[in-house]
């Protein structure tokens, strides 16, 4: 009985576990290669740097599993963050500022979800459109200026250290735990998989596929809001270029973690391992003193190899 459970566990999480193994091996090798790598300072530093993308990758995983893609997340971080930053630096009101950030981000998510779920526009196109719109609005509203001078409470709460670990890092981990549960054990999560695998069959079971598709993008929007807040806590400033390129990082993290671009497959623990590998790899390249111009090449190769390995493994398993 117990054995059977173990077997099933290994079968179900095969790609996640193999990626975890790769990460562990990489981590051990790097610990020997660079004395600065396996230190508390370095690890916390990497975790801190990856927190924004990690949170975005949660929403991205939802959307990709549902069979779509969300290209708007990066610029949405910029727009929602900018609005919140402008409000807060003017009024000093933290609570309303936070609500604005999350509200605007969710609104963008619902808008994307409406385009994809109800108006049936291809996700790539719809979210590409919103990406461009968000970026443009950010510049229009800020007039190209950057904003800082947020309420002190934001720093006090966000950067508060528990056992030496900053609050937003703990928040990121808790968010992963919560959303993993949402994805595996709630209607929204389960039906996201069903829609991504076979949306017609899901619809014929009575599932409101439009609604649930929209909700996936709304989840992504919520994550954008939270990521934008973490970003503000980390940098204590927002400028119009904030968020650029984060959508690609979040997609890369999901894909490395075993999320299938075809939809229907992937888990948040997998995505988390993906973002760990992605972030520690960049860190390692820095520590090893590799020319930063080469770093993109290395991470690109890792993404392609990860997808290749996954497709070979799943073919062999069939």
């Amino acid at each position, binding site marked *: 009985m117990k054995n059977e459970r173990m077997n099933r566990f290994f079968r179900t999480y095969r790609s996640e576990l193999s990626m975890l193994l790769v990460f562990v091996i990489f981590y051990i090798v790097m610990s020997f290669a660079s004395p600065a790598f396996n230190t508390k300072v370095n690890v916390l530093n990497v975790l801190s740097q990856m927190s924004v993308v990690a949170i975005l990758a949660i929403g991205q995983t939802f959307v990709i599993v549902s069979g779509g893609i969300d290209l708007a997340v990066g610029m949405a971080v910029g727009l929602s963050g900018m609005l919140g930053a402008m409000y807060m630096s003017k009024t000093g009101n933290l609570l309303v500022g936070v609500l604005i950030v999350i509200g605007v981000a969710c609104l963008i998510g619902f808008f994307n979800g409406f385009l994809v779920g109800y108006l049936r526009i291809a996700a790539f196109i719809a979210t590409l459109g919103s990406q461009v719109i968000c970026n443009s609005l950010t510049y229009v509203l800020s007039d190209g200026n950057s904003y800082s001078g947020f309420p002190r409470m934001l720093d006090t709460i966000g950067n508060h250290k528990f056992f030496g670990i900053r609050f937003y890092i703990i928040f990121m981990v808790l968010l992963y735990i919560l959303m993993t549960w949402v994805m595996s054990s*709630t*209607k929204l999560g389960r039906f996201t998989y069903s829609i991504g*695998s076979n949306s017609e069959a899901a*619809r*014929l*079971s*009575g599932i409101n596929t439009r609604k649930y598709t929209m909700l996936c993008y709304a989840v992504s929007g919520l994550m954008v809001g939270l990521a934008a807040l973490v970003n503000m806590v980390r940098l204590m400033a927002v400028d119009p270029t904030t968020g650029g390129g984060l959508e690609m990082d979040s997609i890369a993290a999901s894909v490395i973690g075993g999320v299938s671009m075809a939809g229907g497959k992937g888990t948040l623990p997998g995505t988390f391992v993906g973002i760990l590998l992605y972030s520690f790899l960049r860190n390692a390249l820095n520590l090893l003193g590799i020319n930063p111009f080469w770093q993109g090449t290395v991470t690109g190769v890792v993404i392609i190899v990860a997808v290749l390995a996954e497709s070979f493994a799943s073919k062999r398993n069939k």
Partner: protein
Amino acid sequence: MGTNRQGVLVAENISKHFGGTQALSGVSFTLKAGEVHALMGENGAGKSTLGKILAGIHQPDGGEIYLDGQQIHVENPRAAKEKGISIVLQEFNLLPDLSVAENLIVGNDEYYKFGKRVLDKRKMYSHSKELLSLFKLGANLDVYEKVKDLTIAQMQILEILKAVDADSRIIILDEPTAALSGNEVDQLFEIVRRLQREKNIGFIIVSHKIEEIFAIADRVTVFRDGKQILDGVDLSTLTENDLVKSMVGREITNLYGSREFGTCKDNEEVLRAEHITDVHGRVKDVSLSLRKGEIVGLTGVVGAGRTELARCIFGIDHKKSGKVFIHGKEIPNVTIRHSIEAKIGFVPEDRKYDGLILNESIADNISQVLQNMQKSIVISKKKSVGEAERMKKELNIKMGSSYDSVNSLSGGNQQKVLLGKWMLTDPEILIIDEPTRGIDIASKSEIYTILNDLSRAGVTILMISSEQPEIIGMCDRILVMREGVLAGELSHEEVSEQRITALATIESGEKKNEE
């Protein structure tokens, strides 16, 4: 090394396993020149596997294949084609956006000029037309038409023509009639006979449909669980019963079970549909009424609007006009969800694309409707597994763990999972589209028993089917559709295949004559 068997294509002692299952264990097969040879067996018997081995799609673990007495190795479909062996699979290998002519010459260098870089359209069309006229198919296929606009039957004919054009001497047809209506089957067989006669092409037909095999094949080879049961036996020496017995391993005496027909005549009406017209004009002003505990058949030729009608009633497709009443009360806004709430179930025809989510677990599939209807947003795995186990017992589903994916099940068992998914909702009305398509006789018989039990328990069943024996054997009443309208109704006492066919086709036949 040679073989003692006499024939064009000989396979000896072929074995093949997939993962843990032994699909074929030491089977043999002989195709004589220009014969039609049926390869039969239940689902999972290994008949398709052998067909695919002969065509180079699978590689055998052991055994030899001989062509004209010479041992050959078919490493891949291309090698098989070069040796004159072609296969027409259930999933066609056609390019939907290209025309019939373009599909015919795909991969053939001869039709390119200027250093084989530019397509010679004139040559392509003249050759295609010639090929069509050779088999008097000009009326059936238009060389300029795009393949995506063809009917399934036409695509099948095109696939066969492609094989003929590649100078195949042996053509393997994998379940060729699975998606064809009666007329189309006759047409297909006519072409097979003509090719057999005029070009001496040998056919291997992989099938489990007994009547059809008697209509077309000369000899039959039967497998059961990967083992050889019959080896090239002359069909004239066999009866249908012999064949069923050899495929199933036991005699099935009463396929449709014992049902007392017409006992529900005075029961209360549970569903009434009035003047249903769909958006695309495939259903025109159809009304019907179902009584408690009845099994009502809905039949007609493919394209008559049966499935479309059912989809409108259940709320899958929007209707243009019409009303649906449950227990005399109108459903104001017919959506899938409202229909489920009104205790209607809908088992779709295509279990792989519409019915089930193949890569998800049996438990998740079987409880999907219930999960969606539950109030709580939290899904209990334990509950889903319990429901799967209950249905496993009730429907005799052969499966390992309920966490396994539906993909791992055979067609018959997938169908039971699909049926179970809707039985779990305790429906009062079950609409079931082609309940036994593509499944073996043993599973068929079980599904008929389940349907009979359900109806005895008071469930009303609307059964859509193209298989007339099944409609006749199961239904209290039969509704026949023709070109979107209800052409007539037959009671169990009145019904016969001739009468169904007459209702389903006569008017359209007359129309054609007038033209």
